């Protein structure tokens, strides 16, 4: 008999026609949370949407402004590398090219950004791109130093 009464009580809790059980939906309306169920469950909403839009605009602007100067620099470094016959100059140009390729990769990550995720770096929130995620793992040199 006890079990039966427990079930009855649970059914009462889910009965929306009873006044006492209407508190949860009203609370959500008061808080101004108008997200759909799927967005609420994933923790996504208007603020996240604004952040993503801002981030996408900023990253597109960075890529757009930086791409042309870097193309010219990278192009001339390549041309000099092909022409140069001196070993020392070639070595230095190769280092410059390597660094420019890293910048190129970063720009490529920014270009294809479609998500807003941040990472805490010494108390500062920085945008997570593929390059930042790769940097989390210590490289060979770091392991040696450790």
């Amino acid at each position: 008999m006890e079990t039966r009464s427990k079930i009855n009580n649970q059914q009462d809790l889910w009965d929306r026609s009873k006044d006492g059980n209407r508190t949860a939906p009203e609370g959500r309306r008061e808080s101004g949370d108008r997200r759909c169920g799927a967005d609420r469950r994933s923790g996504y909403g208007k603020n996240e949407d604004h952040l993503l839009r801002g981030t996408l605009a900023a990253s597109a602007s960075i890529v757009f402004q930086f791409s042309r100067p870097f193309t010219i620099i990278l192009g001339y470094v390549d041309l000099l590398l092909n022409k140069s016959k001196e070993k020392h100059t070639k070595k230095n140009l190769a280092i410059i090219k390597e660094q420019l390729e890293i910048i190129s990769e970063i720009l490529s990550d920014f270009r294809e950004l479609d998500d807003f995720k941040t990472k805490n770096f010494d108390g500062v929130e920085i945008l997570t791109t593929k390059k930042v995620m790769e940097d989390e793992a210590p490289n060979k040199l770091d392991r040696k130093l450790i």
Partner: protein
Amino acid sequence: MLDMNNMDVLLFDNRTDQSLMIEEMLKQIGCRVSLVMVKSDCFAKLINGRYDLVLFDHSIPGLDVTGFVNKLEIIDRSMSVAMMVTLSSRFYEEKYGCSGIDYLIFKPFGYEDLLLLVREAFQYSQGFKQTILNKWK
């Protein structure tokens, strides 16, 4: 091994600094390059001579990309069309997916990237010529 000494490239770019660098790289690859900075000069060159590849910049102010590429296709369908771009690939897929642009080259690019593009364009152009020749035989 492809011999790209016979390849004619029409480079359309309104920025002197960038276009001179690309022209030099294309010459080093072994292409014959014609450089134009205005749209009307570009069409005048295309009407007077045949080119294997047209390479132009997306960021040319006031350029209607779709209209420009449509006109290129009317002049010569066998010619490859490549656009130098900066924004995300998703944007270009959505906006210019069906416009007739054959290749996108993302900035910043170097000598190797340009060489790869020229090779592919040359293969395409040669393949197209072969198909036309076979049709006439």
